[in-house]
């Protein structure tokens, strides 16, 4: 257990100072070899093929006319980009994209602000209730999503009945529910980062006549900016990827990209000519930004994993 308990903090501490690169392992020679090179190459080859084949298939289908996909006559000879043009008119993904950007963007912004506020005192002071506070932040991430969605829906329908205010189809409930994941996630990321920022810095700012908030704004904020960006990205991706909450709290007025695609898929699968080529094109369009973001922020990924992205999604 002792080893186990050391681990997450290792991961957490590894956020801002980049994980030590092994490039300088010249002196080590082959001392850190963990598999015979031939085995290593086989594993590499198998895994790369296993990843590339389905993804390549999706890309291929996205460039294949719909009727060819349905009849299974897929060839490299009949590729066309028409699907990528048609999806914008035939599948509701343009609207879905805008709704997703608004919803996920607002939720991520709110989460990062709230998380930054909480992370500052959590890393600067010791006070009663600090540990329970931190533990609660972890614990809430293990709460299954269905446990949250049922009462929230019940409360919203009660509000609609008694007060006549309809929140379903507006942005508020969905933004607030995404904060369920965004707040603990960004608080943790920022706590982990700000622990490594020396306190002398804000002490110096205080001595120079800054208020606490001034120190936060002028000193801590610029230093913590990389972690703030990372927290924003991860909180944003929660909203981008979610289906459970969006399927309940949105309707045709504000459905997110994920829901638009899910509806498109179930509608088109019963059509006379299912638009599977377009479906795959839309799927590619909705993953490209995410994959790009993750690859850019690759080295923070481990931390994002251990800090959150847990709650029944």
């Amino acid at each position, binding site marked *: 257990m002792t080893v186990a308990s050391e681990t997450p903090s*290792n991961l957490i501490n590894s956020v801002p100072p980049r994980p030590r690169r092994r490039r300088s392992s010249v002196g080590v020679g082959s001392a850190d070899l963990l598999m015979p090179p031939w085995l290593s190459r086989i594993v590499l080859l198998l895994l790369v093929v296993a990843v590339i084949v389905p993804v390549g298939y999706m890309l291929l289908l996205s460039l294949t006319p719909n009727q060819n996909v349905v009849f299974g006559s897929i060839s490299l000879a009949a590729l066309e980009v028409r699907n990528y043009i048609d999806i914008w008119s035939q599948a509701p993904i343009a609207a879905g994209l805008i709704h997703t950007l608004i919803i996920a963007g607002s939720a991520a912004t709110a989460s990062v602000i709230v998380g930054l506020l909480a992370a500052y005192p959590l890393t600067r002071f010791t006070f009663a209730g600090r540990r329970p506070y931190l533990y609660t932040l972890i614990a809430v991430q293990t709460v299954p999503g269905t446990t949250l969605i049922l009462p929230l829906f019940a409360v919203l329908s009660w509000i609609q009945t008694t007060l006549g205010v309809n929140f379903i189809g507006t942005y508020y409930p969905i933004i607030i529910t995404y904060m369920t994941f965004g707040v603990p996630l960004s608080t943790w990321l920022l706590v982990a980062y700000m622990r490594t920022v020396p306190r002398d810095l804000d002490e110096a700012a205080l001595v120079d006549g800054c208020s606490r908030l001034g120190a936060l704004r002028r000193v801590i904020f610029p230093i913590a900016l990389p972690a703030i960006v990372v927290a924003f990205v991860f909180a944003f991706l929660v909203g981008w990827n979610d289906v459970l909450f969006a399927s309940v709290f949105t309707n045709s007025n504000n459905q997110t990209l994920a829901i638009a695609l899910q509806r498109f898929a179930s509608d088109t699968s019963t059509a006379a000519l299912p638009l599977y080529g377009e479906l795959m094109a839309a799927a590619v369009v909705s993953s490209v930004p995410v994959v790009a973001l993750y690859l850019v922020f690759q080295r923070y990924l481990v931390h994002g994993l251990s800090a959150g992205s847990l709650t029944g999604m």
Partner: protein
Amino acid sequence: MSTQLEVSAGPRGTAGAIAPGGGDEQPSRTIRAVNWITRHWGDRPLWMLIPAGVAIFVIVIVPVCLTIYLSLLNVNVSTLREWLGAPFYGIQNYVNAFTAPSTLGVSLGRSILISFMFSILTTVIITPIGMLAAFSVHRRFKGSGLARAIYLIPYVIPTFVTALMARIVFMNGTGLFDKALKFFHITNGQTYWLIGSNSYWAMQITEIWATWPFIYLMVLAGLQAIPKEHYEAAALDGATIRQRLRHIVIPELSGVLKLGMLLSTLFHFGNFTLAFVMFSSPPPAAVEVLPITAYYNAFDFFDFGVASAIAVVTMVILIIPGYIYLRSTRLAAQAG
């Protein structure tokens, strides 16, 4: 690093405290409250914790309590809008959930089994794959950066996209999977993967494909934390690869592996998106994992009582691994 963290902020709090009222007179309640706050908070802006605290309270803790309350009420399509006045039902919802197969054809017991099997099988299979993957790229070589990026792809593609992709890959006859099986003469290429009992395996394969990089990432991070000196010392002693693995790598990785397996089990237990998007709606009985069962009971049949009971059972099941996770992080203790 800990030296920076251990700096105590202790005495500061008392500096600005209003002195307690002199003599015998009792300070008023307000003054006592202000006193308490200044004594404990000093000039420390602890109010900054309030927004996150309120957010967590309102959108997590209150709903959890409400779910437990709802699970004891007879809330159905006719009482949903005035559910506060719904008749008290006791444990009847739980009894119904366990005994009567839901309208989807799966009882709660069966749904629990499916969820358990799904999450444990996934974890058991992705752990060795993820370890091998990490071993294969942990040394830098020409192209290792590219390989690492490719390894990440299945994990970072949104789950709903993976599900849509699987929907097409597993199509009967024309899908890639059936075609491959036919090509290798394993089947005649006419298997229905998206309906009936095969659907479980289609979902299982997809989940394994999509999530092994999670273990890979954890193990890779663990490998990078092993000091180079350990390898050097082992090399001086003439250790073979096998000895190196057994005496250095596996012991050093055991923590990260335990954490990864725990998180993976927790995470796969609650997977909703894959089953929801990959299959027609409602999904086949074989893939009725707990979140799906709760969801369809609530939003297709509007039996919120039974759905809440299922959600509560899910939460209770997750308490044990959740508690272990909480203990194992010990991060709060470290930070203080």
